[in-house]
């Protein structure tokens, strides 16, 4: 409950602060103004206890939000006023409140960095709490703007250039606190805040400070900030996934999806290493039918790498590219991504090809009864593919063999792929080949190995269905609009160019005139 007395104090203090904050002295010497405000707060006893402080700031947030919502409502009534004029009136109050919080965080308890970060976390928790309550209670009337402005302005203020190095000692704690706040506000939890959320997470300053170490992030470990940012992207893709999976694109989802593509394109362009390193977990979140979105992630390659022209190579030359023997950088703990009930017998089989009944049982082990819409556990399927591939590459290195369609043959590792390709039904095989195609990226050992797996399976399967389905998987990724991963291109080019695979002999390449034309077009482009 809120006592009227505290509400009254909040209004007095906020009114006093707003006039002080925009006054010339307030602009010129913010610290003095802050000192005056702290004095006033003490006189009103709003800083007396931890609870009082919490209650005071919660009421401040509610007060600012109410003022903004009322002003914007007047916009709807007095329609004549241009939106940005109304917006500026809202910003006037919101920005003053943000300035007060930022000054208190920056100058509280000089030297005691821990107090600064404690105050920041308290304020962020209060904002999240009020936002969540508002989102649940106001529902149709919920307006994200006030919270959107408070959060992004506070982020800009606190993480911006810090010439006095006041916040440098707690720079990572500050970024982590904001990362946790944005994660707590993710669209799956607050869909009504989703547009504001993506605007914040996709803001140039958030990207810059979490991924380019600008502002206070200069001295922060970029591995940690990249992981924080990736977690936010994954949480967002998990929200979009069901709607994209069903190609259910009402206007709101279409706008959100397009905005997501923009943000991911900026990441692909400026920070490709993030997508290289986290491609596995990100692609695991993307529905199998989101071909272009997945291609975008898989097209990333390390900035210093120069991609060989896929159209100018033949596969023999591809085999000799030095990077094709190098394991890609990854932070995955492979042992943990497969459930033990599969990994233990799998390890046993890979080592000794026993028990013989492991292969026939494997398709069932990959099924999941409860996941709606599919009978297979795609996460486990993807993990199995990558795990077997990594172990196969290790084994080749042990035997000092290069990766090639010959060296990968007749091994326990290839048994897994071959048997699954034969035993799985259409849906299962689609997911299996998807998992393999998700490894066709820039020149590295995984791209090399899995490209050879596809080529080997294509050549050695006795059943045209498998050749056709491999072709489908590659083709649907090629006919999608750009970008296309390098590994995908070299695999398909090899398939259609090298007579060993007899690609054009298969009936499915000419099953319909338009298909034949399409294949020819892609072949002409590739060759």
């Amino acid at each position, binding site marked *: 409950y809120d006592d009227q007395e505290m509400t009254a104090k909040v209004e007095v203090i906020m009114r006093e602060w707003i006039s002080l904050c925009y006054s010339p002295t307030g602009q010129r010497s913010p610290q003095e103004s802050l000192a005056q405000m702290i004095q006033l707060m003490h006189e009103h006893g709003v800083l007396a206890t931890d609870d009082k402080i919490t209650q005071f700031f919660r009421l401040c947030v509610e007060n600012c939000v109410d003022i903004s919502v009322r002003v914007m409502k007047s916009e709807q009534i007095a329609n004549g006023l241009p939106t940005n004029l109304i917006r500026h009136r809202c910003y006037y109050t919101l920005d003053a409140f943000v300035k007060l919080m930022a000054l208190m965080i920056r100058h509280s308890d000089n030297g005691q960095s821990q107090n600064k970060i404690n105050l920041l976390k308290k304020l962020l928790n209060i904002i999240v709490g009020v936002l969540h309550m508002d989102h649940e209670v106001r529902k149709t009337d919920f307006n994200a703007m006030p919270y959107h402005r408070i959060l992004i302005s506070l982020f800009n203020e606190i993480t911006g250039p810090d010439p006095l190095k006041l916040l440098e000692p707690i720079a990572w704690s500050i970024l982590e606190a904001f990362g946790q706040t944005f994660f707590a506000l993710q669209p799956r939890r607050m869909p009504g805040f989703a547009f504001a959320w993506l605007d914040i997470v996709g803001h*140039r300053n958030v990207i810059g400070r979490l991924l380019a170490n600008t502002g206070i992030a200069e001295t922060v470990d970029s591995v940690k900030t990249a992981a924080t940012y990736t977690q936010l992207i994954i949480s967002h893709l998990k929200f979009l996934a069901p709607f994209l999976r069903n190609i259910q694109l009402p206007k709101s989802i279409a706008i959100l999806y397009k905005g*997501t593509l*923009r943000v991911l394109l900026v990441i692909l*362009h400026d920070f490709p290493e993030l997508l290289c390193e986290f491609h596995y977990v990100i692609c695991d979140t993307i529905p199998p039918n*989101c071909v272009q979105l997945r291609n975008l992630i898989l097209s990333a390659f390390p900035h210093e790498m120069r991609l060989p022209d896929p159209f100018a190579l033949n596969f023999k030359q591809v085999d000799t590219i030095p990077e094709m023997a190098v394991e890609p950088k990854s932070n995955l703990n492979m042992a943990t991504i497969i459930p033990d009930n599969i990994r233990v017998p799998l390890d046993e089989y890979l080592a000794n090809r026993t028990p013989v009944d492991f292969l026939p049982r494997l398709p069932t082990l990959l099924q999941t009864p409860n996941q709606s819409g599919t009978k297979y556990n795609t996460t486990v399927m993807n993990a199995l593919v990558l795990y077997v591939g990594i172990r196969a590459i290790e084994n080749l290195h042990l035997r000092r063999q290069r990766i090639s369609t010959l060296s990968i043959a007749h091994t326990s590792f290839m048994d897994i792929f071959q048997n699954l390709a034969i035993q799985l039904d259409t849906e299962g095989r689609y997911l299996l080949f998807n998992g393999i195609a998700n490894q066709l990226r820039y020149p590295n050992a995984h791209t090399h190995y899995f490209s050879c797996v596809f080529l080997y399976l294509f050549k050695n399967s006795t059943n045209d269905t498998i050749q056709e389905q491999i072709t489908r998987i590659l083709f649907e990724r090629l006919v999608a*609009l*750009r*970008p296309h991963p390098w590994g995908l291109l070299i695999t398909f080019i090899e398939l259609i160019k090298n007579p060993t695979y007899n690609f054009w002999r298969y009936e499915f390449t000419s099953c319909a005139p338009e298909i034949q034309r399409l294949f020819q077009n892609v072949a002409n482009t590739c060759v």
Partner: protein
Amino acid sequence: LGYDLTTLGLSLNTQDRKLHRSFGGPWADSPIRAHELDVKVPDEYLTH
């Protein structure tokens, strides 16, 4: 689900890794222009 990603208002062919500095955000059809991009300027430049 396919978009021509070259029409989203991002100059993807720039060599430097600074697209994000003038990124107008997820809804922007064009980058932020120099006169819109707030940067830290010397105090004396704040002539207003």
